[in-house]
């Protein structure tokens, strides 16, 4: 039986005095893909960046309410945010490989964790690159600088890097917005496969993409959750007029 791996309770987020999220209640079932859609500035990115506490690095950022991950509040003082981020991986909007070799990009997650065993790391590099269908393209050039790859390849490398340390949840912040359609197709295919082992939350501006890859969809508007439900339902029979207006392209 699927359970809620992640849940937000009345989540409010602020940058300084500006309130970005106005009380979000959302629950995520394990091994599902949830898409978060909404116009720019509606708080989608702030929302998923709160889940792995990467927003906590920004001065003036403040949060109220609870985020429950595996039955524990992530802001509990017993929770180490470094540990949390290993379990809640993230792929960003723009490909951001380290200016190091392809191999070192993936090995980094192991190095910082004190894992030095070469066989473990070699296997993880190969496995994760195979998962993202990059292995065949780069297997002979693992020592090549990652910045020499194309944008789409770089983004798949960032996926591989996040997958290599085997998180439970994968947060995707518009992962396809800076890459070409062919790479996008590969990444969508990848998301389908990853669903078996991971819980995925994807922020996207692309409605077709949301419809294609997700099981559940949440529609955000001006920091509020307007509608949440099965993707089929949201796209065929939205309950709220604003959702309907947005997905049919009348605003946003």
């Amino acid at each position: 039986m699927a359970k809620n791996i992640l849940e937000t309770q009345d989540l409010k987020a602020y940058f300084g005095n500006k309130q970005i999220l106005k009380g979000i209640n959302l629950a995520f079932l394990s091994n599902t893909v949830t898409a978060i859609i909404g116009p720019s500035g509606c708080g989608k990115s702030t929302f998923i960046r709160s889940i792995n506490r990467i927003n906590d690095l920004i001065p003036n950022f403040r949060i109220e309410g609870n985020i429950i991950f595996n039955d524990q509040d992530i802001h509990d003082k017993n929770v180490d945010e470094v540990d949390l981020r290993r379990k809640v991986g993230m792929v960003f909007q723009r490909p951001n490989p380290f200016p190091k070799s392809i191999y070192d990009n993936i090995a980094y997650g192991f190095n910082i964790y004190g894992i030095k065993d070469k066989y473990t790391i070699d296997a993880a590099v190969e496995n994760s690159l195979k998962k993202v269908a990059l292995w065949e393209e780069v297997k002979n050039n693992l020592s090549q600088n990652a910045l020499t790859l194309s944008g789409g390849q770089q983004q798949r490398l960032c996926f591989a890097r996040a997958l290599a340390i085997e998180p439970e949840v994968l947060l995707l912040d518009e992962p396809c917005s800076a890459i070409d359609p062919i790479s996008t197709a590969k990444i969508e295919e990848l998301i389908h496969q990853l669903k078996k082992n991971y819980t995925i939350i994807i922020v996207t501006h692309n409605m077709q993409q949301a419809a294609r890859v997700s099981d559940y969809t949440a529609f955000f508007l001006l920091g509020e959750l307007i509608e949440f439900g099965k993707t089929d339902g949201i796209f065929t029979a939205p309950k709220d007029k604003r959702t309907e207006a947005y997905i049919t392209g009348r605003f946003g």
Partner: protein
Amino acid sequence: MNRKALNNFWDKLFKLLGITSISFGLLVLLALIIDVIIDGYPRITLNFFKSFPSRKPEMAGILSAWVGTIWIMVITALISIPIGIGAGIYLEEYAPKNKFTNFIEINIANLAGVPSVIYGLLGLGFFVRYMNLDRSVLAGGLTLALLVLPVIILSTREALRAIPSSIREASYALGATKWQTIRNQLLPAAIGNILTGIILAMSRAMGETAPLITVGALTYIAFLPQNPVIIKDSFPFMGISFQGLFDPFTVLPIQIYNWVSRPQKGFITDAAAGIMVLLILTLIMNSIAIFLRYQNQKRVRW
């Protein structure tokens, strides 16, 4: 004249003005260098490097000056580089952004612009008098370290700030701690620019005269600071001595300054030769800086 011809005219005029200004600058520099080479070239011999200063111009050399310059530069580097990089990392990555750190930032930028003689006075008051270091190599090195410290802090911060925040986020998102991120991602990416800043600061410090005169560097000195490596007859045949830190010293620019102020014509030749040595050293250091910057640009681009 129609509009196009007029525009063309102004374009050409400005181009001409630009060429004139740059040639003026280059020609003056070239004239100076050629003049120095003509004056000083005959004195550039091995003996010039091996001799102490002397009352007779043809006997005088820069041995104590270049050895002193190396002593001072090494001490300056050893003190200012770790402190400067450390302070830069703290201010950029750890310090909270509030009014107090803002105040510190503004003051560091101001310190980078304070005339060097003021640092000399500080060195005289604090290191020479208060700490009783006397007119020693250590006092001189500490004074110059203070002088270059703000520049190193600033260049460390600039180098760190030039790294896109996406690299930091990528590292944190994989579960890295702050120090791991700094150690593994930020420092390797920034080190080229940091080194460039350090070398430029050092080459400036090498030419500094005023603060060292203020601290009390001697102008006539016929011995060297105690060699830090002592050869012994018995096992382990070598020892390390820090006595040299407390010996008096002179440096190249002071020696040059001293020779220039002498009436005898021969000393002008000595001074020119000394200037050549100093210029070449500065040129070498600046070339290393340019080379590092170039290498860094090739290696890291986002």
